[in-house]
């Protein structure tokens, strides 16, 4: 399953601030890699895998969470492969926490990636999920 996040369509509810503001031309969406989420169903003995790539932020963390939720519904064990993630913030960490409550969670991260040991330790995520760091 592949979900393409569309940067122009926020996943979060529309701003209560009213009509969308005119955006300066200089702030046209650019430079942020498009995020992709992929869910591979698992088997009897293999965990379901959710692969994420690109930046995960407020705009698409909902999709990430949805993908994790789907995986957790399908399998008692999930692997979140975040080795191709280029940015993520605390929202993504939160999504992982929720997933870890639903299924046995393994997180694969790249050693040089945005999700580093500091984040995992500070958040406490390393206490409830298995973290595999790939060089």
């Amino acid at each position, binding site marked *: 399953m592949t979900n393409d996040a569309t940067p122009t369509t926020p996943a979060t509810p529309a*701003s209560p601030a009213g009509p969308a503001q005119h955006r300066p031309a200089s*702030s046209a*969406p650019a430079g942020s890699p498009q995020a992709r989420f992929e869910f591979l169903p698992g088997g009897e003995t293999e965990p379901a895998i959710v692969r994420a790539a690109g930046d995960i932020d407020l705009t698409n963390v909902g999709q990430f969470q949805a993908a994790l939720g789907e995986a957790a519904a399908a399998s008692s064990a999930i692997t979140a492969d975040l080795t191709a993630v280029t940015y993520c*913030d605390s929202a993504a960490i939160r999504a992982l926490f929720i997933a870890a409550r639903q299924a046995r969670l393994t997180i*694969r991260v790249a050693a*040089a990636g945005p999700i580093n040991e500091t984040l995992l330790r500070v*958040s406490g995520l390393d206490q409830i999920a298995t973290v595999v760091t790939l060089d």
Partner: protein
Amino acid sequence: MALAADAEPASGATGLFAADEEVGRDLATVNWSATPLGLPASWPQSLQTAVDILLSSRFSMWMAWGAQLTFFCNAAYRRHTLGRKYPWALGRAASEVWAEIWDDIGPRIDTVLATGKATWDEALLLFLERSGYPEESYHTFSYSPLRDDAGTVVGMLCVVSEDTERVIGERRMATLRDLGSDPSVVRTEQETLDFAGRQLDRNRRDLPFTLTYLFADDGAAARLAGSTGIAAGHPAAPVALAADDPDPLWPVAALLRGESAVVSLVSARFSVLPAGAWSEPPVQALVAPLTRHGGPPYGFLVAALNRYRPLDEGYRAFVGLLTGHLAAGIASARSYQDQQRRAEELAELDRAKTTFFSNISHEFRTPLTLIMGPVQELRRRLADADPEVREELEVISRNGLRLGKLANMLLDFSRIEAGRMQASYEPADIAQVTAELASVFRSAVDRAGLAFKVDCPPLAEPVYLDRGMWEKVVLNLLSNALKFTFDGFIHIAVRADGGQAVVMIADTGIGVPAREMPRLFERFHRIANTRSRSNEGSGIGLALVQELIQLHGGTIAASSTEGAGTTFTIRLPFGPAHLPAGALVPAGHAATVSASADPFVQEALRWLPGTAQDGGGTGARSVHEEITPGNDTGPPAQAGRALPARVLVADDNADMREYLARLLRSAGYRVTTVTDGQAALDAVRADAPDLVISDVMMPRLDGLGLVAALRADARTAAVPVLLLSARAGQEASIEGLRAGADDYLVKPFSAAELLARARASVELARFRNRESQFRRTLIDSLQEGFFLTDQEGTILEANQAFLALVGYSADGLPFRWPHPWLPDPGTDPDGWTATARAFDDYKRHGGGRYTIQVRHRDGHVIWLACSSASLPSPDGGSRLFVGTARDVTAERLAAQREATLAGFAAALAAAGEISEMLTTAAREIAAAVHASQVTTALWSSDDNPAVTGWPRPPRSSQSLRPAPGQGASAAVTGALDSVRRQPAASVAVLPGDGGTSLLAAPLDGTGSSAIAAEFPAGRPVGAEVRELFSVLTSHLAQVLAKARDYEQTRAVALTLQHAILAPTELPHGFAARYTPAVPPLEVGGDWYDVIPLPGQRIGIVAGDCVGRGLPAAAVMGQLRSASQAVLLRAPGPAEALTDLDTFASRIPGAECTSVFCAILDPAAGTVTYSSAGHPPPILVTAAGDYRLLDQARSLPLAMLPADWRRSQATATLPPGATLMLYTDGLVERRSQPLDKGIDAAAVTVAGHAQDHPDDVADYVMSAMTPAAGYEDDVAVLIYRHPPAPLTAQVPADDPSCLALLRATLRQWLSAAGIGSREATDIMIAAGEAAANSVEHATAGRPADAAPVQITLTASAAHTMVQLTVADTGSWRSPPADREQPAPGTRGHGVIFMHALMDDVTIDPSAHGTTVTLTKDLKP
């Protein structure tokens, strides 16, 4: 072809005749010019070729060529056929050479020459005169045409093999077989001789005529008892020879002494003799005695001899066997006659005995009656008399009764024997009659303390009984029961069953031993050593009972369990139909028990306690004497025989078996007995006897089947078999003989007959076996394995050496293809294919050499080098193969090991690092020893070894970063650990997990490395595998030791190189690249340096010493150290270079080094520099404009004239500028000016003016790389001056703007040269701050409020980065306690900021919130 041989005949068999030295030499001496062929030099090529082929062949050949059919032959022909005619025959006309047979072969040769078609003759009889006399000989040959160069038939080639021995051998064997195959039971001596004569007469080639004389009992007088090929009465065959003839026709005196003699027949005394099968009469006769054991000969045989054969050993043996057979036949016949006579005498005696008993019994009855009558009278009258008198009378009465009973029984027998038993059968109620008879016994049974059950309900039909006889039956049985029963009961019952009346008399007595059961009803048979109430008994009671019941048309059977009791069951038909009508009488008087019961009861009562005993008791009884022919003692030795012949007796009847065994043993044979044909077959295969005597009817495998099985197997085909059968008649015996039996006897046969037949068969077999035994001994004595196979590959014969090689015994012969020791197609398809190919090859080519792998019965693998050749089968049918086999395992393994080791060494040599080497070694060793897994371990300092192996440990899906050693089982790890400290080159064999086995060895003596190989369960690790493993690991250990030394040295060198090379940790904003020109060195003459100086300044240096490689590196190291020192002290770059000039002048090889030296002041944004003959650095602005730092240039180090001074210049560093120092290796190209290279480098840097310095360095290095790689050392140092601060603003109500902010920041951080790790931290912290703004700054604001903006600023100094994220909304306070939130809850943002940044300040206000983030940059 060299024709020099003709010029030099003396030089022997060279040139044309070179193919055979000996015959060639003789051919060379032939005066060829006198033949139509002329000198060999002039011979056509076709003739030369034919002669060469002829001489080369090992097969017997001759050829004829040209007008006169000039004769040539080869060595084999000379040896086999030509005899004395060699070398006379060479070069002569063939018709002259073979004049004596030219009538036979001439027409054949003519046919070949005329038609060009080959002839074929098989075993053709030819009378060759090669030995000085015409000789009967047989040849199988083919004449084929020979053509000259023009293709015309000009000669012929004969390929010949001689069959004389075979043909004559078969003929004689046929005669012997015929003699032994008399299917009839021989009756008389004359019949025997007549039969033998008919057989001898059929072979008039070997026996033109024969005479058989028998001596009279009194001595030398002899009469002609048989003759073949000659009429009795012929001058040579007088019907009688007188005892006292002084000059006898035949040497009677010598014959009487048992000697043979050769008598010349060329004498007038013999007149004209018949010629037998030949045209000429015989000239010699062999006269041989018919030997009798332990006496003078029976007679003698005159055998006229074939004049066309020599009287050789084989001929003599043949005649010897003939006489032996005749003698045996005579002995047999005479013995039979004796037996016959004895049997008749015995029968006569038996008749006399019966008459005697009959008479005597009869005669007894009269006096007994006259005794008993008065005694009874006296008892009555003296009833009141004195007790003593009465007692005496009782004694007389009792013994009188007993005597009367005995006499009656004998009389009954006599009558039955004589068929005079007068029976009167009347219809009777058998139940009632039997019950009454029983009742008379009741008192005796009661007194014996036994229960007596009489169960006789009336039956529906009458049984016709002779009352008297029936009484005897019942009384005998009851008396018997009482006699042998001490506890329990006696039971008599009558029933109707299956149309018969059944009377059962059962007891709980001592029973009858099973072995005695068959003889229970035998007359006079008494069971020895049996406990009974009385020792009395004649042993005729049960026999009489049986006779009497049989007279009634009934049967009696006994069943008994020793110690438990005996039951007799009598069955009598109802009605009269089975009885003679004349003996039937109507039902008569009332059924009362006659007086005959009295003696039984009286006698029985006396056995019981409380009655008088008249002797007896339970003492020992006479042991029954078996009536057996022959006896077991004193086996007569067989004359002239080292070992007694061994006879195997197969019969399912134990009595017959024992009888035969006794008989044969008594005749001196060693006897083995078996109970059926299968057992016999097994026994013969295990160890063939001299004779098998077998019954025809047997369980499992009958006699005919046995014979067939023996004949079908080459090893047992020669074992003679004598069949015994109860089936008389010609058909039965023919069936037996057709099955291949050597002889056949019909039961009953006499002992003498059997022995005679046995002896004849053994003699025959021994003759037959002599040759094969000789051959067997010969091949068994061979050291090499020898085997014989048929076309299907079945091994028919093999010698001990061969069987020992494969570990099987001769019992398994024949071994059918595929043999059990060959590789299994399932588990070893390669080995099987190789073997099958070898087999096909040698079948197709009729032999060959091949080496195959076989598995010894105990499991170990050996290699056999086999050589095999084909030969015709003796029976003329399919071909056979003989082969030899030699164990070449050791050679093979050694060669294999050498090859394996060589390959192993080569593979290791190709491996670079130690880990690669170990992996390679593991792979190679696994392949060499067929291990399922090979694991190596290297211990460095701690207890966790680095483990590698082949195949690599499988990665489980759960563990993506397998720990070292993963996949190695506990057993393997344990094995590695246990052997690591063992002495080098020791190999341990250990059990693995799950039945696997392990080989483990240390790789050095110090305990730092080990290797283990794991073998699948069920595969034993052989010695050869262990040895190979040892050899390979030893080699590995050596290579490993060298590699470790090398790596250690290299590590030292690298450490030293790194020490003199540039700093490994560059301060923030710098990137460097270094490529030495001379691998594997990691240093060269170029260098760069970055030296932090006081006042936040940074010294930077790039230099290039003259030369390359290690010498240049040594100079460079010193100059680099010096430059660091001088920069720290000198006020500016010019002074620093001046100091270096001084320094360089003192270091050999340092002069003329080019150096660029500069001092950066990041705060001021300036760079002050001075160049000592170095290429100018490139300065690129953030916008991509570039210039060179080409001021303050001077000469290289230590090159400055004395009055010169070094100068320095200062350049401004605009924000985000890039400065690149380099050495000339980067830009110098042979074919182009330096400027062009510098320009190219500058353009590249300018193209990446805003990229991270590391990326810039990579771009430059890769863009400038020449096609063939850098030829010189290259050093590049890049500095990125901090860029201008960043300011970016986005609306907070659109979360997608966060991506925009991030992209902007990411680009700025890269341009600022911030490391990726730090950049990531900064990105996340800033992202959190901005996300907070988006989420919260807009919350709760009135709809008409001004849009919230997020403003990001970033600025970089040399050692730190500072960012601010400001919004115009309201800040939602973080949790008051500032503690870490519970995992999984919201609120990580601020925590992350604090964790990732060095300083975080959040400044909320009514108009917005500003987050300031500071990150220190690590140098």
